[in-house]
């Protein structure tokens, strides 16, 4: 019951957030120089051509009316038509989104799988040389722009050591993408690196905090050994706040995919967005922003729910 109520409240919150996002996107749409018309008709278009375009597209109505129109078309799953590709934005995104999800989810899984043990190991070896070395490395990993990192990866692993291709899988279906798994290695490394840096720091902090908790002392007083305490108790307790952070990290992951896809020529949403930006294809740009934001909100929601599964206290609403 409490769970259901929580879920309902949380979903309502998400809906409010998405509505605010649509307002932002709508405002961006109208912040375009000369409106959307100028963008598509080009600088040579006459005022008359623009006026006609605006009339055809319903762009001469008052803003609130346009917003309602806009929302109504959104509810029908219609994100407009690409100016340059002559295809529905929804269709374009539907083709590309799964690929981006594959990349981001893989990066997140790889990143977490490395970061969690690394952070715990650092906490246990706190202030020893290994801790300092890993801390320094994670600062460096965090501070390296992804495109610079990608460049180094390509130079090292495709030119110096020709182990991996410099292009991500190009296949249309997910099956083809997975079949070319070798080509996924570099993009996933590029996407996961900063995540390893950030989450190993979180995990280190959370582990240190938990190691000083009273329950660790109780377990030691009961004769439990360090290793058992670490894996049976500290690990799970430290993971809870880290999972909570995962929700906030979702937008960063998507932001990263924008650069990674462009670097490795991976035909996901990031690349679609990128080329749309080059050709001022506003419907595609704003459609992508909207979909990515909704994906982020949903991702955050999932992380919240995951946290409640791990931590019984949150479930009961006493925490």
């Amino acid at each position: 019951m409490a769970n259901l109520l929580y879920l309902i409240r949380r979903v309502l919150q998400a809906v409010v957030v998405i509505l605010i996002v649509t307002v932002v996107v709508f405002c961006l749409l109208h912040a375009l120089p000369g409106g959307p018309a100028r963008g598509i008709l080009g600088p040579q278009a006459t005022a008359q051509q623009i006026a006609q375009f605006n009339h055809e597209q319903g762009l001469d109505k008052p803003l609130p009316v346009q917003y309602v129109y806009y929302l109504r078309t959104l509810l029908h799953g219609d994100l407009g038509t690409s100016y340059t590709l002559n295809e529905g934005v929804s269709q374009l995104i539907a083709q590309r989104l799964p690929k981006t999800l594959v990349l981001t989810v893989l990066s997140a899984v790889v990143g977490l799988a490395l970061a969690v043990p690394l952070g715990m190991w650092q906490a246990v070896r706190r202030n020893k040389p290994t801790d300092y070395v890993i801390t320094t490395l994670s600062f460096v990993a965090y501070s390296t722009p992804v495109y610079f990192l990608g460049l180094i990866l390509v130079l090292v692993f495709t030119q110096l050591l020709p182990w991996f291709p410099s292009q991500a899988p190009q296949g249309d279906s997910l099956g083809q993408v997975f079949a070319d798994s070798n080509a996924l290695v570099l993009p996933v490394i590029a996407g996961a690196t900063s995540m390893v840096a950030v989450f190993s720091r979180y995990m280190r902090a959370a582990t240190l905090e938990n190691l000083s908790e009273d329950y660790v002392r109780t377990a030691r007083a009961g004769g439990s050994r360090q290793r058992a305490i670490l894996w049976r108790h500290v690990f799970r307790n430290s993971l809870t706040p880290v999972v909570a952070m995962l929700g906030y990290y979702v937008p960063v992951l998507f932001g990263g995919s924008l650069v990674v896809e462009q670097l490795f020529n991976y035909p996901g949403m990031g690349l679609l967005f990128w080329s749309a930006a080059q050709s001022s294809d506003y419907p595609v740009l704003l459609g992508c922003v909207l979909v990515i934001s909704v994906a982020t909100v949903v991702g955050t929601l999932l992380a919240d729910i995951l946290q409640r599964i791990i931590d019984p206290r949150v479930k009961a609403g006493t925490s």
Partner: protein
Amino acid sequence: MTTAEKTTQAPTGPILRLTDLGVTFTTETGDVPAVRGVRLDIAPGETLALVGESGSGKSTVALAAMGLLPGNARATGSAAVGGRELIGTPEAELAGLRGRAASMVFQEPATALDPLTRIGAQIAEVIRNHRTLPAREAAREAVELLRRVGIPDPEQRATAFPFQLSGGQRQRVVIAMAIANSPSLLIADEPTTALDVTVQAEILDLLRSLAADAGTGVLLVTHNMGVVADFADRVAVMLEGEIVETGTVEEVLLRPRHAYTKRLLGAVPRLAVAEPGAAPAGAGETPPAGDEVVGLREVSVRFGRGPRAVQALSDVTLTVHAGETVGLVGESGSGKSTAARVALGLVQPSAGSVSLFGTDLRRSRGRARRALLAGVGVVLQDPVASLDARMSVAECVAEPLYVHRGRMTSAERRARVEDVLERVRLPRALANRAPRELSGGQRQRVSLARALVLEPRLLVADEPTSALDVSVQAAVLEVVSELQDEFGFACLFVSHDLAVVQHFAQRVVVMRAGRVEERGSTATTLLHPGTDYTRRLVAAVPVPDPVLQRRRRAARQEAPAAGRTAAGE
């Protein structure tokens, strides 16, 4: 279970022997010796209470006896459990002893258990740390242990998470973990300090019977002389890292030799109790003399909305009149602090009315409201959180002057601050110090000075001394009563400590679960309670006299079990 069964494994001689034990902590500011030259023995089946005030090193001794000292501590001398030396023993070997030869119960049941592991699993873990037996077997034993420590419906409770249990039940679980491998030594570090008195009495009864059944030696660390009188066979008194006096509980509590012990016992507020069976004198409320200062009328408070809403107060009526002190007592969650906050206007009642100095607090706004509130002084419980660490003592005390006497010159303000600091018996030199440099007692006096700087007509004190040592508490309370005599302010005094309230307040209001359970003059109400609840509350308070306490305990245990809630506190 017989005594013989358990004592076979322990050889003759003391279970715990500390010889010339010293502990030094390495800190940012250099080495700090915490314990020096401590020697004591505990025989099988014997309970030794290690008493002292905060900073005396008593908890450090307990941790040393478990080999659980933190990394920055260095131990010298000898600490032997059942003949095995702990100091210098490698961690892996110590782990083999902990939970088997000696085990420990901690002060804070709220944090002592892993919040994400089911309690049955936590107990089973301790069992399997020392004995090789199948998981299912260990789980069954865990349920059995839960039953032994008085958890109702143990099969089902074993699958509960700690947060689903009350504080007393959690402490029972910690005790179950401690006795899981029948240790010969049980170390209990302030095991009941975080609990309400009625729960404290039950936990002490449980520990006593478990120790007696198994012939376990107990090292009880506590600051509470009543608990000592209730539980200990022998007592060791610690002062600044050293033991200053040792003896049987009767010797130390009734005929103390060392000056410090005498001073300590002198400072303990003693609950005056009627001899069991004495007839109640004429009960009833004495009509208060002066005008009403603050009045709550049929106040209800509800926190939150929907199904999670909590009814914090229901129909509470409470008045304080000029010049008198009203004690507001009750266990945790009884709503006493909420009632005080309603009186201060910090919490809005959902029903009922609040009047301050004869004016309806909810109707007054703006300047009028502020003028009204200028007549109120406040002292809250936490000496650390009560003062802004970024301000000097003088700034803290002067804050009400800035709020209400904006036109005062800085010289006048300084004079007023120094005057009031003197009245709470703090040296003027403290005025420019930061709160962090002060002791807990000094901080509470600063809070008191701040509360009195405007010469209020009402002082609201919410557990003002419960974070302080008894000797400091006595001094602070003395200052409050002196100043009350001098200025004649009324006082609403919230406390969980019946003995303090008995000494300090003329009238008392007993609260329970958000309602007023009983009210009356302190003398009659606390000596001859009119309700079962208050009677149980009074009976649960341990008095620092072993002979009297033994009689009281017997009387309490004989009392019809109807009122007692097994372990379902």
